């Protein structure tokens, strides 16, 4: 009970702080914050696969790119399409794609799964590159943000501030929903499946269906992030569906840490800021990315959130109290 009210307070404070941001920040930084929120959802959805289910996917950009491309394609080809319908169309497509891919791929585990998802990511990338008539090929697709129709009134989305608030509400709700998902029976099933698949089978859980539900859920969330990515940049290029996009999310999640829920959010934050500043300074951004990867794997396997948690526990949590609490926390989140 206490845990629950504590989380509600944290969510409330974060909400208030984010709501005040358009007043505090300059336009450039507000745009960056919007980007961070979008990638935070993408990273959180990826961590549900990697951190919670233990599935290393190299094809998460398929869903992200699918969301982004479907939004752009729908807006370009259907004149006067409303914002909600564009989101709806893209989400439905992403859900179908996730179900089909999931039922094909989830029979495999570990490296096999990683490899196959990579191959499928390349397949989708190849299709997006070659199918010029629909996707625009290398040129990409440019779109306009439609108005937000609330029934009684409509709000223009051309101003960044308005779009920021929409992103904050929708993406924020999605991130909270993902968090809620990890606390449902379904979310726990996934966690326990990672720990001991055989036992869960004997207990009567249907492993395949549970995995497929999780895969579809994470795919859909990545798709939602992709939709907002398209709206935010008003442009979708084939980069959105490339393996590089998967690598980006992998790096975010790994830098942030997979052990705690907010790790990937922190990772997205660090990644976007680093990328924005480093790519200004040096054209060798991929070199730094690779170095960060190797250093993190070798020396900081828990990610930044792992460092923060250990510092926190060292200085702020009472020793005797610590032992029991740490172990329960680990079961729930790690």
């Amino acid at each position, binding site marked *: 009970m206490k845990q629950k009210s504590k989380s509600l307070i944290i969510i409330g404070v974060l909400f208030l702080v984010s709501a005040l941001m358009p007043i505090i920040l300059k336009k450039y930084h507000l745009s960056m914050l919007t980007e961070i929120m979008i990638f935070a959802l993408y990273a959180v959805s990826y961590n549900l696969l990697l951190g919670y289910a233990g599935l*290393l996917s190299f094809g998460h950009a398929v869903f992200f790119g699918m969301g982004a491309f479907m939004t752009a394609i729908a807006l370009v080809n259907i004149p006067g399409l409303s914002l909600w319908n564009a989101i709806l169309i893209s989400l439905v497509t992403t859900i179908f794609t996730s179900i089909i891919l999931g039922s094909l791929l989830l029979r495999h585990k570990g490296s096999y799964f990683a490899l196959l998802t990579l191959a499928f990511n390349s397949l989708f990338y190849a299709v997006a590159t*070659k199918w010029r008539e629909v996707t625009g090929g290398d040129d990409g697709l440019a779109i306009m943000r439609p108005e937000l129709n609330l029934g009684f009134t409509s709000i223009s989305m051309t101003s960044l501030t308005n779009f920021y608030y929409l992103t904050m509400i929708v993406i924020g709700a999605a991130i909270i929903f993902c968090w809620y998902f990890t606390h449902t029976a379904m979310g726990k099933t996934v966690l326990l499946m990672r720990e001991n698949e055989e036992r869960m089978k004997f207990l009567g859980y249907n492993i395949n269906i549970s995995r497929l539900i999780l895969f579809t859920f994470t795919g859909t969330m990545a798709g939602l992030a992709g939709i907002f990515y398209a709206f935010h940049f008003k442009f979708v290029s084939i980069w959105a569906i490339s393996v590089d996009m998967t690598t980006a999310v992998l790096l975010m999640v790994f830098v942030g840490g997979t052990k705690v829920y907010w790790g990937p959010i922190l990772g997205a934050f660090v990644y976007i800021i680093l990328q924005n500043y480093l790519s200004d300074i040096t054209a060798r951004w991929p070199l730094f990315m690779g170095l960060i*990867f190797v250093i993190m794997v070798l020396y900081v396997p828990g990610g930044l959130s792992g460092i923060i948690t250990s510092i926190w526990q060292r200085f702020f949590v009472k020793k005797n109290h610590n032992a029991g609490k740490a172990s329960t926390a680990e079961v729930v989140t790690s």
Partner: protein
Amino acid sequence: MSDIPVFILHGLAYAGLLFLVSAGLTLIFGMLNVLNFAHATLYMLGAYFSYTVVTQMGGQFWMALILCPLMLFIIGALVEWFLLRRVHAYGHVPELLLTFGLAYIITELVKWHWGNYPLAVKVGPVLESTVQIIGITYPVYRIFIFLCAVFVGIMMALILYKTRLGIILRASVNDKEMANALGVNIPLVFTGVFAFGSALSGFAGVVAGPLLSTYPGMAHDILIDAFVVIVVGGFGSLGGAMIASLIIGELHSFGVLLFPKLSMALIYLLMVVVLLIKPSGLFGEKS
């Protein structure tokens, strides 16, 4: 369709190249259980080393064929010894990520040192000439690639199935703990296999350079095809890699002839079909 023999030969040449890359990949996977994302990057490194040896240092092509795999052997051994071994205990994900990060670093360093444009390597008068085969004039070099692959394939099969070393290798694949308990130095075997796979990959790179030209994207271009080869052939199976290389090489070649726009998708389509019918690949054991 008088071109058909030409396309068959083209397919064979590409199949040879694919086999040289995927043989090392599948060996490493079978032994270390590591999916080496840096494998194709080492192949690229082989091609660039050969450029340096032949064009910049004025050496002969056959020198590159011997020297570059040796260098890659050392690099592979160092990578396994100093990096991969340290994270082996943490499971698959860190290992994959490590090779992934390594691929990024090497690619970027290659771009830094050799530039971002295609380079050409001279292979000498004999290999540059053409030859009359079954009524058509065909470049010797492509036949040379195929013969290299056949040679390597036969040598690997002989080593694996006819020598004491082969017995040790197969035993380690089957049951690492047991082999270790019987006195096989498993960590050394791991390093050796990784280094040998890297050398093979470097050899493939040297051979590929003159055919496909040497450019920073060459790693990515062959990586996916090599992955498809080991999926279709079955993870860790050398014979599977051989057959799958042939199928994909020919598919690649005829795809360009018959469906130019779909040629890339054809290979993935084959992979999906194989996965649906036999998820462990054509020659793979049950996963």
